[in-house]
């Protein structure tokens, strides 16, 4: 069995209930949701509704129909940014964003949207909420930031940012790709107007599933238009949620698995999931500190972090470390820039990048031990 420490990219393995839900839909139901009036189509529609309802419960969203399904968090972020921002609008983000936010904002900047990047401290990898307050302008429309960094593992105080946004009549987008399922997210107490999530990471769903919550009363210009199964006599896009922003057949088997993943999380409790992940990352970081040749990158404090750590081994390229771990030790990690050049520029690891180990609730302490032994051997071997 491989040791899989690349969960920040996609979680693997999935809980058996997620696989079962995917199989059950495909075998027993199979039809297109929300399109036809027959029994199997209605059942597919129910599965989709239940998936929305379970996510609504997880994020404290009052109306499940304010959630639209997308392929992933990237797509969800794009639906929000392109649906909302117009030339002349000012948007504030952090200087450690994943390309999911960085690239659409850079493009929108070229189209006349004003972009302000709030600095991130290279040591603590943390933001200062006051900087967001200071960055506000009369034309600020939106603050858009990630919740947890896929490179540093640092979690941002999004409730504080959401409060600043709300107090100043600015909308707030939170990208919870890395945190949903493993860290409490509440759109009400955190004042989140747009919540972009993905299904295939700590929510334990399949690749090709994700979604966007849009606060009621906010109208976004659709990014994509097409068939919705509603108002079929009209050739213009419906203006109600979720149909306005959700065209084309969704990944229903994947979303069935996502709903099962959410149920798995609810049954175990997010706090229990967190405490297991914290135990693993503590063991991992403390073990890596002991290895002289290992340079940990970014913040290594154990409070309020994801089970993610970036590091380099002296004298070896990240890609070489990744290759040895894979070929010799059957351990999977991600190396390079992790789709986040801004983060590496902030931490001084651009363009070389880092080796990133990212854990999941389903990893074990034994696996961490194996990983530490492997990294120790690679480090020593290099020295000889």
């Amino acid at each position, binding site marked *: 069995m491989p040791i899989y420490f690349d969960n920040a990219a996609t979680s693997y393995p999935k809980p058996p209930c997620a696989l079962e839900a995917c199989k059950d839909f495909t075998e027993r139901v199979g039809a297109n949701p929300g399109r036809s009036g027959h029994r199997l189509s209605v059942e597919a529609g129910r599965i989709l*509704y239940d998936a929305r309802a379970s996510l609504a419960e997880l994020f404290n969203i009052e109306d499940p129909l304010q959630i639209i399904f997308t392929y992933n968090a990237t797509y969800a972020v794009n639906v929000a940014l392109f649906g909302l921002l117009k030339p002349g609008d000012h948007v504030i983000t952090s200087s450690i964003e994943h390309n999911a936010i960085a690239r659409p904002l850079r493009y929108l900047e070229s189209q006349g949207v004003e972009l302000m990047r709030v600095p991130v401290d290279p040591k603590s990898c943390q933001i200062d909420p006051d900087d967001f307050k200071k960055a506000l302008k009369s034309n600020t429309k939106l603050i858009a930031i990630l919740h947890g960094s896929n490179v540093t593992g640092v979690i941002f105080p999004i409730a504080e940012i959401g409060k600043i946004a709300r107090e100043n009549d600015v909308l707030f987008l939170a990208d919870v790709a890395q945190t949903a399922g493993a860290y409490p997210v509440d759109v009400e107490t955190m004042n989140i107007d747009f919540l972009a999530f993905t299904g295939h990471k700590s929510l334990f769903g399949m690749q090709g599933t994700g979604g966007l919550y849009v606060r009621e009363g906010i109208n976004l210009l659709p990014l994509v238009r097409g068939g919705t199964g509603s108002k079929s006599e009209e050739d213009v896009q419906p203006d*109600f949620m979720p149909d306005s922003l959700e065209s084309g057949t969704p990944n229903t088997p994947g979303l069935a698995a996502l709903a099962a993943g959410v149920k798995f999380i609810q049954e175990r409790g997010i706090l229990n999931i967190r405490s297991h992940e914290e135990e693993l990352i503590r063991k991992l970081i403390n073990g890596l500190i002991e290895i002289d040749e290992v340079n940990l990158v970014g913040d290594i404090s154990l409070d309020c972090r994801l089970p993610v750590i970036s590091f380099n081994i002296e004298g070896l390229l990240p890609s070489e470390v990744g290759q040895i771990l894979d070929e010799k030790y059957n351990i999977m990690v991600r190396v390079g820039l992790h789709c986040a050049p801004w983060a590496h520029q902030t931490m001084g690891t651009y363009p070389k990048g880092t080796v990133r180990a990212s854990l999941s609730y389903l990893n074990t302490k034994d696996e961490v031990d194996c990983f530490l032994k492997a990294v120790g051997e690679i480090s020593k071997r290099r020295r000889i």
Partner: protein
Amino acid sequence: MQDYSVVTFYSTHHALKAEKVLKKEVEILVVPVPRSISANCGIALKFPTSEAKKTEEILARNRVAFEGIFPWPNG
């Protein structure tokens, strides 16, 4: 013979939300929408007309958007 009505929706997603909130309190049946009533989404909920007021009230309380309530066409 029991008298039936049907509530129609703009979207199947709305119809299925309605099914969720109604099913414990009203005897409902998910049915394909008769074309003579609506050309919107493919499904509607059929229920005894005697429950019409209650149905409307539950939908309003749960903020489910619906198109209209119509008598179930006979024959």
